């Protein structure tokens, strides 16, 4: 009996220590990254609906995922009559988890477009389908499986330096969906499979656990230490270096393909963009493409840019952007050149578009300035293009298209 009493006392002490630590961490403002993701049978990975927590790697921001799994406010599936809906697709640059929701490119774009293309009876909604770490194939699958049900009028896809390499399993290894060209057709790579844990039951369990983890600092601490800390310590002890995909990513953005694998990745990317454009035409939506370059490209520090160009032995950063523009032209996709205007914006306003208080300046994801600048550039382009069409005409056109597709 005394043994159990002593054991309970010891257990209670441990609980007290844990509670004190949790309280201490909260009071001290110590935060660890939250989990926003879940496995998905189609996309392989997606934002977990209703997940919420802190993004602390760059800046410090509270992120809330809506019930559709979007880094956005709650949206209705069916838009109100007359609504102009714009869907943004892309990776973490579009998801913009580093900045408050109202400062994201999507929300700033919504407010800018509302002033020019919208009216009280015909509002503009910009839906953010960006997901951190998404590959081009995932963006295509997202468009096909999730975006069209929201009936967007305009889809803007933002490609980043990793988008093209991510079309090749060898250049961008990881558990992602891949497509291959087989007998002239683009087909899913039969060798890739959705990750374990993408069944509804497993996702439900994962969501419960993830949400609990996002609420309790100690769980976040243990996860951070075991997922990042222990591998890092082991790597330091063994003297090994983490392998990165960065070489392929930058090389392919700046230089023409240097290997058959890189050429193949461009070919697959071309085909995927073609399919996306075709899908947009089928759904009566405009499809726009834009390219976000590496951080050095919009660095207002001319010396840093020049040094980078010299190191890479290139004259401009424009290889990928030019090639993507050509692909867009071939498929009849509108193209929004982003990088030169972004740099002009940064230089003109003397601001850094990337970097937060806890990161190097001009490094990583867009900060509020970057999101604002990108939204301004995209808005200008869309407003210029749409300035001749009236909202009522657009709504009528869309209704007609939906009726045709529904056969009604």
């Amino acid at each position, binding site marked *: 009996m005394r043994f159990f009493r002593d054991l309970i006392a010891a257990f209670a002490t441990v609980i007290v220590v844990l509670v004190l630590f949790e309280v201490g961490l909260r009071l001290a403002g*110590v935060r660890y990254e939250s989990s926003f993701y879940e496995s998905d049978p189609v996309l392989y990975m997606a934002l977990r609906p209703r997940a919420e927590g802190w993004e602390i790697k760059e800046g410090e921001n509270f992120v809330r995922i809506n019930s559709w799994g979007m880094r956005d406010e709650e949206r209705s599936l069916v838009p109100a009559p007359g609504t102009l809906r714009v869907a943004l697709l892309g990776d973490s640059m579009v998801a913009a988890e580093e900045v408050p929701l109202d400062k994201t490119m999507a929300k700033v774009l919504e407010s800018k477009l509302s002033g020019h293309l919208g009216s009280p009876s015909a509002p503009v909604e910009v839906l953010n389908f960006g997901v951190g770490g998404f590959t081009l194939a995932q963006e295509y699958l997202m468009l096909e499986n999730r975006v069209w049900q929201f009936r967007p009028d305009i889809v803007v896809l933002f490609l980043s330096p990793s988008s093209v390499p991510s079309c090749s399993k060898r250049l961008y290894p990881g558990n992602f969906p891949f497509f291959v060209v087989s007998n002239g057709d683009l087909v899913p790579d039969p060798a890739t499979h959705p990750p374990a844990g993408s069944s509804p039951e497993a996702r439900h369990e994962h969501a419960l656990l993830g949400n609990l983890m996002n609420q309790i600092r100690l769980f976040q*601490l243990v996860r951070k230490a*075991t997922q990042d800390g222990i591998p890092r310590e082991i790597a330091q002890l063994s003297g090994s270096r983490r392998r990165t995909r960065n070489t392929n990513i930058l090389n392919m953005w700046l230089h023409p393909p240097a290997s058959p694998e890189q050429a193949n990745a461009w070919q697959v990317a071309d085909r995927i963009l073609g399919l996306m454009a075709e899908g947009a035409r089928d759904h009566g939506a405009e499809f726009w493409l834009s390219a976000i370059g590496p951080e050095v490209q919009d660095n207002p520090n001319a010396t840093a840019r020049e040094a980078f160009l010299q190191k890479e032995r290139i004259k401009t950063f424009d290889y990928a952007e030019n090639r993507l523009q050509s692909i867009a032209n071939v498929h009849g996709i509108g193209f929004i050149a982003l990088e030169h205007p972004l740099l002009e914006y940064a230089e003109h306003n003397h601001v850094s578009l990337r970097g937060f208080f806890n990161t190097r300046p001009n490094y990583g994801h867009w900060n509020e300035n970057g999101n604002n600048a990108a939204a301004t550039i995209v808005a200008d382009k869309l407003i210029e293009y749409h300035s001749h069409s009236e909202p009522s005409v657009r709504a009528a056109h869309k209704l007609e298209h939906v009726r045709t597709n529904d056969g009604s």
Partner: protein
Amino acid sequence: MRFLSIEYLCLLGLVALSIRISPPRWRSAILLIASYLFYCTWNSWMAVALFAATVLCFLTALRLERMRDKNTASLFTCFVVSTLVVVLMFFKIRPLFCTTCNFIIPLGLSYYTFRLISYVVDVYWAKYRASENFTDFAAYVAFFPQMIAGPIQRESSFLPQLRESAVQGGTIEGPMRMALGFAKKSIVADNLGLFVGWGYGHLHSGSLLPALVAIVLYPVQLYMDFSGLVDIAIGSGLILGIDAPENFNAPFSAKSITEFWRRWHMTLTGWLRDYVFMPLRMLTRDWGETGLALSLTANMLLIALWHGISLGFVVYGLFHSLFLITETLTASRRKSFYAANLLADKGSAILGPFYVFSVVAVGSVFFRAPSLTAAAQTFSSLGSGIRSIGKDFWSLLAPPNHHAWVAFPAVVLLTIADACRRRFGFRLPALAPRYVRWSAYSGVAAMWILIAFMLMATEKGADPFVYALF
């Protein structure tokens, strides 16, 4: 290998386990191997230099004991001590002549040099018998928990502990003391460091707030940083069965600067008192008050210059010696005055700590500011007025400082915890019931597992300790 790292905790745990399960005669060998292993993670060649200095002093002490001729012994001692001092000075002065050179300063050079000098001099003065066991002596010189920032433990208190038949306690007291140090460093010192950094970075902002923040908070940051480092060192020592002398005794509760220096970095000031001040005082005893003032100034200048050779440290030393001399020379008159005026005595007891903190805060500007010009700029910023104080206040609390306010309640809590430790200790009563022992062990284990997780979760590691640079 840093103090606040998983590697250090693993090494400490492994050594603690080894010395508990191995025969007592192996203890010094285990400590010696672990200490050199720790040292080699910084620089293997410097470990060779440490070994060479250890061998030199070990043999010197043995030789001194056998010397009959006093003059030869004196010359021999002078030669060895001078060699050690020259090496120390060489590394301290070298940055002055080559500001761009990227050279390595041996880890803990001052600390092991002080230990070696005191050992040789004590043997020469016949205060202590030369150790005949090289392993014991080498383990004392290189004892890894005290290598980064002391405390400077004398051989007379260290070596006997190595020879005890069993490791005494330390399983609760050691980890608790380390946790206290970890909290002082990571919750208070690092956060106050953000404010102080902000202060020195915003001196031209237009209000007096940055200068005020920099001047007032730096002594607290420095104390929490240094005493945290020493807590970790003492706690580590306790886990390894070595009880080290205290280095701080609530220095900001002192009522005079003289008392402050008896409570701050006590092992260094004690060492300098025994091996510098007292011999100097003996030499100048015929010069009366002038001799006393000279000895105090020389001693204080040495303390200051130990941190680094710069004009800032010279001014820091002179500034403190001014107060020390004034207080020493007026001590008897003040004593009789306070004896006659009880109210003034009580008032001085209350106001004393404020006076001490103010002097230390002003003096620490010379310690912290990168140059005398910067120090002057800090003081002149105090006259900037309060026009933009509101703007500065919000800038002070803006990221990355937005969570740093936690340092203020933490200072209070940790000061109370430290006072409780001094009064009651963290040691478990010898006859504590089993549930108390189990609770204490499991609580401490849980706490350290969480601290280890925190260290692993921090990508950049903790900020370096201020005093680890000296």
